[in-house]
């Protein structure tokens, strides 16, 4: 117990003075210009805007020397999804080959399994995955093995009309929530923990034609991630 609290105080002191010991944040690694593909979306479609921002976050943080993306949610969705497709195909093929009355038990089983798998998929996506956009992990070696875990989730804040308390309307905005853990000793001693939440309207990142200002977006994301890495807690 005593060791931990001393550790926490030590980290707090160091966080305020830009510790040299902190692993490299995304802002320190510049993006080469040739790697850049232009992103163009339909300005009027808010879900396209959100998807473009989500993709940019994934591209930005999964660069070499930065976080390694954890694909658990995608893999679960792929596994359950393809399993349900094969169950459906199998049941349909069986029902096609075998005469109707005899095929009934197998087709019943197939249909019920399909419904169960689809329900599990939906529940997983809603409760477990939720708004998560990126889950990453990194191991660095500086004096000791430091393990970092970062989770980013995003949501769109809808546009608002002018009201009495707020006379101007606000555009739809992109909310990014970042949760960060740094630990050593195989996760047993916590070095730093940060949680930030940043919001900015979509017009700051997209121009009238719908082209994305990726540098502006990446700088904004990088600053938010680095403040989470510094131990800021919202």
């Amino acid at each position, binding site marked *: 117990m005593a060791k931990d609290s001393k550790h926490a105080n030590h980290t707090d002191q160091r966080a305020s003075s830009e510790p040299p010991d902190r692993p490299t944040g995304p802002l320190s690694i510049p993006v080469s210009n040739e790697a850049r593909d232009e992103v163009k979306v339909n300005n009027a479609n808010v879900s396209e805007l959100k998807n473009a921002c989500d993709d940019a976050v994934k591209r930005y943080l999964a660069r070499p020397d930065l976080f390694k993306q954890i*694909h658990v949610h995608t893999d679960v969705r*792929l596994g359950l999804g393809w399993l349900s497709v094969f169950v459906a195909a199998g049941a349909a093929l069986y029902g096609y080959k075998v005469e109707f009355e005899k095929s009934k038990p197998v087709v019943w089983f197939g249909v019920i399994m399909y419904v169960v798998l689809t329900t599990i998929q939906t529940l997983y996506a809603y409760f477990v995955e939720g708004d998560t956009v990126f889950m990453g992990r990194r191991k660095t070696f500086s004096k000791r093995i430091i393990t970092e875990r970062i989770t980013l989730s995003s949501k769109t804040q809808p546009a608002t009309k002018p009201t009495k308390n707020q006379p101007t309307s606000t555009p739809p905005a992109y909310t990014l929530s970042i949760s960060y853990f740094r630990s050593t000793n195989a996760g047993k001693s916590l070095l730093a923990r940060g949680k930030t939440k940043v919001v900015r309207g979509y017009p700051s990142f997209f121009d009238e034609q719908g082209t994305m200002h990726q540098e502006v977006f990446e700088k904004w994301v990088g600053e938010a991630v680095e403040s989470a890495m510094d131990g800021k807690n919202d």
Partner: protein
Amino acid sequence: MFADELKTFRRLGLRHVLLQLLNFASVIASGLMIWKGLGLVTNSESPIVVVLSGSMEPAFYRGDLLFLTNPANQRYQTGDITVYKIPGADIPIVHRVLETHDDKKKDKQLLLTKGDNNYVDDLELYQGLQWLERKHIVGKVRGFLPYIGYVTIAMNDFPQLKFALLGGLGLLALIQRE
């Protein structure tokens, strides 16, 4: 020709490609399961059929869509409109029940049918059988929608339409994201 697509796929990664394919495949899978589930619930091999001939006019015209059920424990009665398939002939026929008899020895129902718009009953269509049995019946007509069946008739007469529709659906699923 495919170099550009291959480059895009490699950049996007295997997972992305699998996800897009999954979108397309799950649309087809859910359609299949809805169809099979409907068949199980109605106890009918083909719960939705299209009228192909004019033998039931003026009740049903060519191109009408019919909805069938086949309750296992209900007797069929004179006046019911049934869809049946003779083993050996592929096409389901929709005609009205004219006579029913119960075969006590074998505990099954025997039926004779006739199209409203035909002059004679269906004995010639039975391919040697004297009566229709329950196992030949696909179902009893419960409801119908006029004209909708022409889509299926068009797709059967012009098979290119079927592929065009499937291709269009696939393209839509691949282009859009959820």
